[in-house]
């Protein structure tokens, strides 16, 4: 039972040493770089010298804690070890040690960039968050962005240029590239190929195009294993030209999703989720009737100790009545009669967050979605569309859509064949959505090609010996290319091959030259958002492991070696706008994180019905390939946070599995965790079964990205690789799968075992109509009858000053789990590894519970985030023998790690089980590179200590101190806990309940407001807003 399989310390130390070896082969500017790097490292000293300078100090200190405390005997304080403090030599201007700085940058995924705001403690990026000014983020972010920072510090990243496996140097690579360039120029580019992922970077595009102009015969191929080329093919089919589609869900009252999980992934998903949630938010106007103090907030005569009462002493004028209203008052909160919700129909094979939010979820095999699309098109009377008669409810849906002409959306999933996209376009056109809820722009890609085809050509040429120089810019094609192309074999036929990648991975092992890539937090670049808006990528730290950007590689190939990426990007943009005040433009763009009006202009196109496609719903057992929810196409395989993040759909961690529906599993006599062999087109893989309620019958879904062999300490040999079955012909789904029981079990680590609510009702649901009839439906339940305000022998505490509280709107939460990752990043939460998760020792402070309701083949899905409830009558506090968890003056349930002795009684007595315990030494004291990652404002917990959510108390304190300096009250929304900040749908709201104007107080006054397990009289400060569904009465009946 090792604490942290995630990070093998000895190996890592070895790597670090090898990386810090002699530098004699390095070029001059490289040395300069390393100095810069050194400088950055020094920055850490000023802040928290002990750890970074000498990790031993802190480790010893903790060791000492054990021994010397026992000896010192009478006190908790013990002789401090000798620690040094290291000032700058020359202090940078804007650096205030102890005060973080925020830089705007952007992260690209599948070529689509999202603007970010990164927190930096003295040159040490510690937290990634969305950039409110960026259209694709609006301040939100997803767990890939949250976790990307861990990848940057990952000690497994490539740390040296290698040639045929031997450590070489950047300078020699440049030399080699120069030679290749000469050779290519002679042949006018013949045999020179560049393979990239989807590229939207204007700079990189222009760089490559410059080369293509110089050597016309050179070719630029793009391949993205989980890319969106189907969408472009669909556009071609519909409009005869590739376009980029942008949706306006804030305008859509009816949504039909054809296997599109637009709420949790794909371009613009953060914006779309927000727009979708806004259409589902229920606004109720409650008249606040504060209760007289003696009735509602009766304090003790002696009162809480002066410290507390002081808090609001000088705010006497603001000493308002409390706003948590007793139930009978809440009941007054009637929703406006005109409360409306949007309605969503989802057609999908495997449950997704989007499917979970659907009012009607139609379970179809991936291949049957097209048939459904045809039926719908036919029902909408689109010329040339013929019904297959599969979809009974087609007519009803069509009526619903037609009733909302111009205010509805039909969206097709990226994994669906072009025909479905074309049909979606046709339907949107027919419904008059084009230009209203759906707009089209030119593609944002620099190289909008059919990527599947593009790769096929490349491989063909490689095999045909037509390629002598191949430059692979990221993407790890050896691992992720369709298996039938056998990229690895083809690669051997290439004379000169080079690969730029973050990790020395599968591809790096087979190419001649491997160049470590600079992480986006280390690079200068630019990238387009989902709507084309350009954001600059600016580094927060010099490359930790001497990584290089694609810009540098290409510019070397272009004959400009040694040009800094900064200059490359800057020069490009200077060339773009020749205005005099470029400097201002540049600075502003860098500061804001977006380049003004760079969004790609809309184009008007006319959709034509696609030719009836031959591939109607195929027969036979079907397999669907999907990117993994948390590690995507495998590029995040070595990221411990994402490996351990419970997958939103089934709460599984550290594995992928063969998803199969309950009844199909029954037919084949399969159980979860049972090993099966998947045989498809003569190729086989074996993996464990996961029985997935709500999955289509006679079909399995497998997730890509696992089964890595050279991902790193974390990702190696985890799960099975579905790429081994994926062909270039049918990359998304196909029939003809054979499934065979192998016997034998492969335990899967899941964080939630019970699937249903087991008769309890943590999630309260009502349909819109029911809600309109009885707004306080949340109280009409078996248990948790609302309690009379005073169901206690003791008088209530009076919380003057601030009174923190939180609401979670289950109507807005799409269960995307971004909050879990954000919390982990903000609060230095440890990764514990598969074994520990399997035991039930995962450490996430906020979890997203997932419940099924109804029959197992097509259940309703409900998501419920559960952080600490901050109960006013906290059961955990009562039983702590050392007062390590007590209440604060503003009603927080404090957890004092350094006082905790670890009896774990508090966890036993917590009805919500939100407390997490360090059963072993989970936090990694040994991996130096991870020290930089930690949030300096949160203690790193040691072994034997209980931990839990405290509403990000470090942020509360920061705000408090700021406001006190300015001698004012903290403004509503000034304090933003990590989960609130990250949430794409703003389902989580935090604030001061004593302030009747605060958003949280307003929400708590809603009739939908209820607290979990209210009958225990724990008086949670965290409450929920009941979930509403808006089914189509026509279908509900039929």
């Amino acid at each position, binding site marked *: *039972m090792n604490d942290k399989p995630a990070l093998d310390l000895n190996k890592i130390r070895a790597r670090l040493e090898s990386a810090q070896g002699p530098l004699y082969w390095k070029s001059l500017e490289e040395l300069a770089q390393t100095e810069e790097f050194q400088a950055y490292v020094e920055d850490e000293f000023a802040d928290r010298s002990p750890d970074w300078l000498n990790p031993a100090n802190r480790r010893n200190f903790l060791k000492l*804690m054990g*021994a010397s405390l*026992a000896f010192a*005997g*009478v*006190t*908790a*304080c013990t002789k401090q070890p000798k620690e040094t403090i290291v000032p700058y030599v020359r202090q940078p201007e804007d650096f205030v040690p102890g005060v973080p700085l925020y830089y705007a940058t952007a992260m690209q995924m599948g070529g689509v960039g999202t603007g970010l705001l990164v927190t930096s403690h003295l040159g040490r990026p510690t937290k990634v968050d969305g950039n409110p000014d960026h259209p694709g983020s609006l301040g939100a972010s997803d767990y890939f962005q949250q976790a990307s920072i861990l990848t940057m510090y990952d000690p497994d990243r490539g740390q040296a240029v290698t040639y045929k496996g031997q450590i070489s140097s950047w300078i020699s690579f440049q030399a080699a590239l120069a030679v290749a360039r000469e050779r290519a120029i002679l042949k006018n580019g013949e045999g020179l190929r560049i393979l990239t992922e989807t590229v939207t970077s204007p700079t990189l595009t222009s760089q490559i195009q410059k080369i293509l102009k110089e050597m016309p015969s050179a070719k630029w191929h793009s391949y993205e294993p989980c890319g969106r080329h189907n969408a472009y093919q669909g556009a071609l089919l519909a409009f005869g030209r590739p376009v980029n589609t942008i949706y306006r869900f804030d305008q859509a009252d009816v949504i039909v999703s054809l296997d599109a999980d637009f709420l949790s992934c794909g371009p613009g998903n953060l914006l779309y989720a927000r727009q979708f949630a806004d259409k589902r938010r229920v606004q109720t106007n409650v008249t606040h009737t504060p209760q007289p103090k003696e009735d509602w907030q009766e304090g003790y005569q002696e009162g809480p100790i002066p410290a507390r009462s002081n808090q609001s002493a000088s705010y006497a004028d603001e000493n308002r009545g409390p706003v948590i209203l007793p139930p009978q008052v809440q009941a007054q909160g009637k929703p406006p009669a005109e409360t409306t919700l949007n309605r969503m129909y989802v057609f999908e094979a495997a449950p997704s967050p989007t499917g979970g939010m659907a009012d009607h979820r139609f379970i179809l095999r991936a291949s049957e979605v097209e048939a459904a699309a045809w039926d719908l098109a036919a029902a909408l009377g689109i010329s040339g569309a013929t019904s297959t008669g599969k979809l009974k409810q087609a007519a009803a849906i069509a009526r619903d859509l037609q009733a909302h002409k111009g205010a509805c959306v039909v969206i097709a999933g990226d994994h669906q064949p072009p025909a479905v996209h074309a049909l979606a376009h046709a339907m949107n056109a027919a419904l008059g959505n084009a230009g209203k809820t759906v707009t089209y722009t030119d593609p944002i890609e620099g190289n909008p090609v059919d990527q599947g085809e593009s790769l096929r050509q490349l491989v063909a040429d490689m095999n045909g010996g037509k390629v002598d120089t191949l430059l692979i810019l990221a993407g790890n094609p050896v691992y992720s290319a369709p298996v039938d192309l056998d990229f690895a074999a083809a690669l051997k036929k290439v004379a000169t091959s080079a690969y730029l990648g973050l990790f020395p991975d599968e591809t790096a092992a087979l190419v001649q030259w491997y160049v470590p890539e600079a992480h986006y937090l280390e690079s200068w670049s630019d990238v387009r958002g989902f709507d084309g808006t350009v954001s600059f990528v600016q580094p927060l730290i010099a490359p930790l492991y001497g990584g290089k950007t694609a810009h540098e590689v290409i510019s070397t190939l272009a004959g400009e070696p040694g040009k800094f990426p900064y200059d490359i990007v800057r020069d490009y943009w200077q060339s773009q706008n020749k205005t005099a005040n470029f400097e201002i433009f540049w600075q502003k763009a860098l500061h804001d994180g977006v380049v003004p009006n760079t969004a790609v202009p809309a184009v008007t196109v006319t959709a034509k019905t696609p030719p009836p496609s031959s591939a109607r719903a195929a027969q036979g057992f079907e397999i669907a390939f999907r990117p993994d929810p948390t590690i995507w196409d495998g590029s995040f395989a070595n990221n411990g946070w994402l490996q351990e993040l419970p997958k939103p759909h089934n709460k599984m961690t550290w594995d992928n599995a063969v998803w199969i529906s309950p009844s199909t599993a029954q037919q084949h006599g399969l159980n979860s965790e049972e090993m099966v062999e998947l045989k498809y087109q003569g190729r086989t893989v074996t993996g464990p079964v996961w029985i997935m309620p709500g999955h289509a019958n006679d079909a399995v879904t497998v997730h890509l990205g696992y089964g890595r062999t050279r991902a790193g300490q974390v990702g190696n040999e985890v799960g099975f690789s579905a790429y081994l079955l994926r062909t270039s012909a049918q990359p998304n789904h196909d029939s003809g799968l054979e499934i065979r029981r192998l016997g034998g079990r492969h335990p899967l680590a899941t964080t*939630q*075992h*019970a699937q*249903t609510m087991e*008769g*309890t009702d*943590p999630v309260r649901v009502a349909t819109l109509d029911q809600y309109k009839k009885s707004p306080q439906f949340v109280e009409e339940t*078996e*248990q948790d009858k609302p309690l009379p305000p005073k169901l206690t022998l003791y008088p209530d505490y009076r919380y003057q000053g601030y009174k923190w509280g939180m609401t979670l709107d289950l109507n807005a939460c799409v269960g995307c789990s971004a909050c879990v990752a954000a919390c982990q990043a903000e609060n230095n939460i440890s990764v514990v590894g598969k074994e*520990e998760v399997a*035991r*039930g*020792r995962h450490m996430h402070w906020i*979890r997203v*519970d*997932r*419940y099924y309701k109804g029959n197992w083949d097509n259940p309703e899905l409900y998501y419920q985030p*559960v952080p600490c409830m901050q109960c006013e009558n906290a*059961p955990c506090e*009562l*039983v*702590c*023998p*050392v*007062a390590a968890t007590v209440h604060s003056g503003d009603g927080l349930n404090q957890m004092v790690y350094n*006082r*905790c*002795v*670890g*009896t*774990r*009684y508090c*966890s*036993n*007595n917590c*009805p*919500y*089980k939100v*407390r*997490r*315990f*360090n*059963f*072993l030494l989970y936090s990694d004291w040994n991996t130096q590179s991870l020290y930089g990652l930690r949030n300096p404002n949160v203690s790193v917990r040691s*072994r*034997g*200590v*209980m931990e839990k959510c405290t509403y990000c108390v470090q942020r509360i304190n920061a705000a408090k101190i700021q406001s006190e300096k300015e001698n004012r009250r903290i403004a509503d929304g000034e304090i933003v806990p990590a989960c609130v900040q990250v949430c794409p749908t703003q389902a989580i709201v935090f604030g001061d309940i004593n302030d009747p104007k605060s958003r949280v107080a307003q929400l708590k006054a809603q009739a939908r407001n209820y607290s*979990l*397990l209210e009958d*225990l009289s724990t008086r949670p400060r965290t409450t929920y807003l009941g979930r509403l569904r808006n089914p189509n009465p026509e279908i509900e009946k039929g």
Partner: protein
Amino acid sequence: MKIEELEQKAIDPGPEKIIGPGFNYATVTDKIANTVLMPIEKTPRQWWVALLIAFMALQGLVVGACWLLYKGVGVWGIVIPVAWGYAIVNFVWWIGIGHAGTLISAILLLLKQDWRTSINRFAEAMTLFAVAQAGMFPILHMGRPWLGYWLIPYPSSMWLWPQPRSPLIWDVFAVTTYLTVSFIFWFIGLIPDLATMRDRAKQKWQALTFGMLAMGWRGSARHWSRYQMAYLLLAGLATPLVLSVHTVVSFDFAISLLPGWHTTIFPPYFVAGAIYSGFAMVLTLAIPARKWFHLEDLITMRHLDACAKLMLGTGLLVAYGYMMEAFMSWYSGNPHEMFMYMNRATGPYWPFFWSLILCNILIPQSLWSRRVRQNVPRLFFVAIVVNIGMWLERFIIVITSLHRDFLPSSWGMYYPTQWDWAVLTGTIGFFLVLMILFVRVLPSISIFEVREVLHHLAPHVLDDGGTEPAPAHGD
């Protein structure tokens, strides 16, 4: 009868008498003293074997504890939600066992049950050692044991104090008090006998050792009268104490709000269970001991029978406790409570629950029959079964209540690891080692009290130092 004979073979006078024939002050003294003063080579072989086995078992604790302290409590099977595992199960089990001793000495003293005399010393020692075992667990099970002293109120440089609303703090006080008082009680009882040992010792070093421990006791009438009063008062104090201790232990659960823990029935039925298991353990130990040292004529069938009857009685109380739990969970109408009980009976841990019913309720019913009560092997078997049963009861209470509580999303399972087992067997070994040593190095039967009994039974034993057989004891 010759003292040698008495030492060699012993006649069990049967279920009527509390002492065998042929005893007078001198012989009874020598006979008991002999278990301590007999030369090493005369020590019964079974004693050595038992000691060896117990000592090997003890190693489980040594290794287990070291590994635990090195790695952390994670080496045990505990998880969230089942954050308490074997450590607490064992703690409660041992504390329970530690209840018979004081009960026998204190309560039976107050009730003037003279049959207690020949087993009370023994039972008190058992209490002491059992509580010592129990005392280890709260320390070991902490995440940071080296900070255990934070549970003691002392003026620290943090100005922080324990949080006295927590039952764990009550435990600290209750257990330490109980340990101290039990020790005092036991030691005070020993003093006159230590004096006897001092005077009977054959080697000088023995004499000196016992002499120091006896503190110069010389049996003065004044001393005796103060002594008896102190002893009586101690008994009077120990009686409520012994009841309070397991009540407090039961509060560890009852104070919480967990279904299956949060019940008012807990204190009485924990106390009953404690006495139940205590007497089971007394029998488990007394039966072999009386055999090895030929004490059947001092620990007679009368004693075994009385213990058996007490077991039966307390066992019925425990059974009533189970019934009330079931009834209340149904009667309360609280779905969580109802689910909890159903889950115990039919959930993943059902085998434990039903074997608990078997061990604690069904099998002990056989004690209604004299043929079981007065048949040593059968009685021994039942005693063992009850020991196991009581351990299972604690397992059910701790584990099954925790593993499925309010929110289905946070349900989990608990699987003990080898280290859980190591520590359990280790403490059993430790306990036995202490017991086995005790019966050899200290008079395991209270000599002066037996003299008293003798004095009451035969007011006029005319005897010149045990050369002639004593007359039959008039009843």
